[in-house]
């Protein structure tokens, strides 16, 4: 049996619905373990002091912010190529989750930046790229909300997601270029992942796993919601069409 059989909304719902609560609880448990471990049982880092604890939320949310967009891109491609409604609805369901992740990454980054760099916000390439990603999420969600016809909305947002992906990557490299042009080599990057010690790395890994699980749980839940909402409007439309005959 191929994976495409799950493209049937009925089958998708029947298969995923029992999983959603389990996934929710599992992600909550993994997150709780990772976060409690990170918050209470890790030492302070030399340069960062206790502010290093922000990493357990900052890095996983940033990771999911990008991965959510990637998932939307894949789902949009599947919709455009194979016309499976579940795929388009999954992309729609993932967008707000990705947006909240982007917001968390930005806010925690700003709060962390204040003591470390002495500023809430710097026009560092990484930060700027995330802000642009946030704007892309906003536009994508707004376009979904604005188009009344569901199939047209799925098509147009998919096209936007494709074009947006290209421009998001373009922006990522453009801001790199732009900032180097401004402050020569001023590196504010915190990307020292390679030499993060195991004491920080292991709880961080658990937190990342928790965020991934939470993302899957939320996307499955929200996709189910979207499928049901679509069914409601389909039933209503059928009823409206039937009424003149009855009357």
């Amino acid at each position: 049996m191929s994976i495409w059989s799950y493209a049937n909304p009925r089958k998708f719902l029947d298969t995923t619905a029992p999983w959603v609560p389990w996934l929710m609880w599992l992600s909550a448990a993994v997150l709780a373990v990772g976060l409690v471990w990170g918050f209470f049982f890790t030492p302070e880092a030399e340069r960062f002091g206790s502010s290093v604890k922000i990493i357990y939320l900052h890095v996983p949310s940033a990771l999911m912010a990008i991965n959510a967009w990637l998932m939307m891109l894949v789902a949009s491609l599947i919709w455009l190529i194979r016309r499976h409604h579940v795929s388009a609805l999954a992309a729609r369901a993932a967008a707000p989750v990705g947006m909240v992740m982007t917001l968390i990454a930005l806010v925690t980054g700003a709060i962390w930046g204040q003591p470390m760099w002495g500023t809430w916000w710097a026009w560092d390439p990484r930060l700027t790229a995330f802000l642009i990603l946030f704007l892309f999420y906003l536009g994508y969600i707004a376009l979904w909300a604005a188009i009344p016809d569901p199939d047209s909305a799925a098509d147009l947002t998919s096209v936007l997601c494709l074009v947006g992906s290209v421009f998001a990557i373009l922006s990522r490299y453009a801001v790199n270029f732009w900032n180097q042009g401004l402050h020569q080599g001023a590196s504010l990057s915190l990307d020292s992942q390679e030499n993060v010690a195991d004491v920080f790395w292991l709880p961080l890994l658990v937190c990342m796993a928790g965020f991934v699980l939470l993302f899957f749980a939320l996307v499955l839940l929200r996709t189910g919601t979207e499928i049901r909402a679509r069914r409601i409007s389909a039933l209503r439309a059928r009823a409206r069409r039937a009424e003149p005959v009855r009357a």
Partner: protein
Amino acid sequence: MMDLGKYAFEVISAWGISLAALAALVWWSLRRDRRVRAELERTERDHG
């Protein structure tokens, strides 16, 4: 409560905001799902 040193405010606020945002997202998704489920049941009863 453990001692967070001079970064206590930063750590607490970052964690507070993030966890609140996650909780809001989960709560909002669950609430919408419940409403849509109820709505679907009603619609299926009326029209189905």
